[in-house]
């Protein structure tokens, strides 16, 4: 069943067009890779789908409801409750410990500090970095930071996980371990994943691949259809 849809999404930065009309569906539980060369609009598409950016024109619908017209606050709440976001780097708050970072979405939603911390700690364990719960990001390795960020993206039990080059700053092995964990947890919970990457190796974790080129979906047969991988 289609959960998230983009219809003719257009978005520019100043005079530079990033997306020139992208149409895309995301099914429930599907892992979708968005690939393409640098500057093709991958990240912008992810930001539009996740409700971080508002498209200049076109529609983004979540379970049949248009979210691109929602207020900033409403989209923030949607991101907090239904979506999880994982970037290449820079999404952790440097001044908070790993556990506090992971607990953030819960705290913002009004969960008590003690409870939020306990849930956060359990997610850090699940991602294999339980030992850094009281460490600040500056003292962690890149891999630990990224796992911590992944725990934060998953802590609210999102319906969709948006990952923008999540392994970009990691070596092959660390990246692979992170991605394996992410894919396993997503499959367990039936979470959909939008995975933006330029690496074929990473895109291979997905059920389906969409290739962007110059801000539009490349239909020349580059995108590889679902092999029925997702269950």
């Amino acid at each position, binding site marked *: 069943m289609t959960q998230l849809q983009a219809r003719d999404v257009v978005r520019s930065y100043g005079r530079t067009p990033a997306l020139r009309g992208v149409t895309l569906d995301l099914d429930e539980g599907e892992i979708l890779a968005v690939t393409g060369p640098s500057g093709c609009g991958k990240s912008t598409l992810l930001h539009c789908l996740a409700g971080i950016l508002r498209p200049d024109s076109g529609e983004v619908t979540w379970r049949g409801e248009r979210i691109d017209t929602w207020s900033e606050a409403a989209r923030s709440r949607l991101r907090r409750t239904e979506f999880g976001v994982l970037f290449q780097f820079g999404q952790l708050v440097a001044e908070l410990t790993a556990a506090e970072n992971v607990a953030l*979405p819960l705290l913002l939603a009004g969960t008590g500090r003690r409870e939020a911390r306990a849930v956060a700690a359990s997610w850090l364990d699940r991602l294999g970095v339980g030992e850094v719960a009281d460490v600040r990001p500056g003292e962690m390795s890149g891999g630990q930071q990224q796992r911590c960020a992944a725990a934060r993206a998953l802590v609210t039990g999102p319906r969709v996980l948006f990952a923008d080059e999540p392994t970009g700053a990691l070596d092959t092995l660390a990246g692979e371990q992170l991605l394996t964990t992410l894919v396993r947890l997503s499959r367990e919970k039936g979470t959909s994943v939008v995975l933006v990457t330029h690496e074929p190796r990473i895109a291979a974790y997905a059920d389906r691949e969409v290739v962007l080129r110059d801000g539009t979906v490349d239909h020349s047969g580059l995108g590889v259809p679902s092999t029925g991988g997702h269950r």
Partner: protein
Amino acid sequence: MTPGALVRLALAGTRTDTARVLLTALSAVLAALAVLAAFTVLAIPTPPATADNPVRWSEHYSQALLREPGLRGGTAFALVLLTVPVLALAGQCARLGAPARDRRLAALRLAGATPRQVTWLAMLETGVASLLGTLTGLGLYLAARELLHRPDEHGRLALPTDVLPPVGALAAVVLGLPVVAGAATALMLRGVITTPLGVTRRAARERGPGPGAMVLIVVGAAVLVLGWPLLARWSAYGPSAALGPVFLVGGGLAALAGVVSAAGWFSYTTGRVLRRYARRPAALLAASRLMADPWAGSRTFAALLAAVTFGAGAAALRAHFVAQDELRREASRRVGVEAGDNPFYLATMTLVDLAVTVAVVIAAAGLLVAVVEGIVARRRAYAALVATGVPRGTLARSIAWQSVLPAVPAILLALAVGTLVARGLFGDATSGSYTSLVCDAGERLCSDPATRERYSRIVEVPATHRVPDVPLEHLALLGAGALAAVLVTVAVGLLFLRSSTAVEELRAT
């Protein structure tokens, strides 16, 4: 969010954030003291008119500014105006560590915090810091009241330590200033709130500022110079006591805002010119820095330019008073009286000059904060440059260039605007025509009503007016002082360059 979580997130921060909170509190102390002093002056009761005291003076003060009811409004107003540089200082302190905080708030937004939640966090920080500051200010004020309550041998007081503003006014200061500070913070955070990508992705680079600031200056000056006499004419028919300060403050702020935003244009333009002609790396670095963030100059110099504008206005006013005084004495001489100069206005101007000096010092403190902040905020870039072999001297020179170059035209503009507005507002020194009965004989004959008539004649004193001198010396002193403040703060700020360019900074987050 639960209150506990709110406080935890609001207080998450580094040493820079602690410094910002402390400086914000300090600014609140200063602002609270100035406003409390103004309220105290306004709280002085005017005694009922009696036979002894038909002008209703409060005779138990040694200062004319406090004694005469007509002067108290102006005194209070001047005290309130002193909060302008203080507020500018507070604004500069709010920039301290701002990149790190913007990053933190953007990260919070990415985690799903609503714009409102993020705004609340930032407002809470500023509000609590300001509340601590205003409470401290109130404490200092109450302590000073006790300490300075020293009547002289005639039982007269130098300061109005015998009156206390109403409790409502005190509460308004202590609680109102933090609210204003919080609101200002919310306003400054608009840019961050609209985008959770914050530093990850900036939208299109804003264009360089145009010379639109000049429009603000012209409007402000017009309001002051043209609006004020108009208002004065109306005031004969209706109550305009409330409108007067609104006009003064509104016009003054518009002109000030113009001067301050012109600094942005100066930064951009000097950057462009410098980039075209610069051959050395230091100048090139400075030029591109100036063009990349022209508003940094405005922010940095805001308080200083405000103080200089005021100072120039005060200098022009002093020149006006001097001219007026001379005119008056000339007129007196004509009727044969040798009047000594009237020290009242000039004494008042000395007080104003003192206030301007205080403001320049406060502004210099703000400037120092801004320069250090600028170096610390870009320490990664500087450390990277040093790591690739750029000598620290080159960086130091580029920082000096980028601070001093736009400062010079901005200070000159501030001096010009202050002088011209004051000139327009107060006009030429004039005295109206009048006739006077002069008795030319000695004191014995003149004091006798019988003989006085015979020796008296009517002297007509024509209306005169005199253009006050441009107080060049005073203005030069003020400009040189401001420039010296810039140079000193840059020199002090550069002391932080060495520690900020340690190559270890490359690893810092």
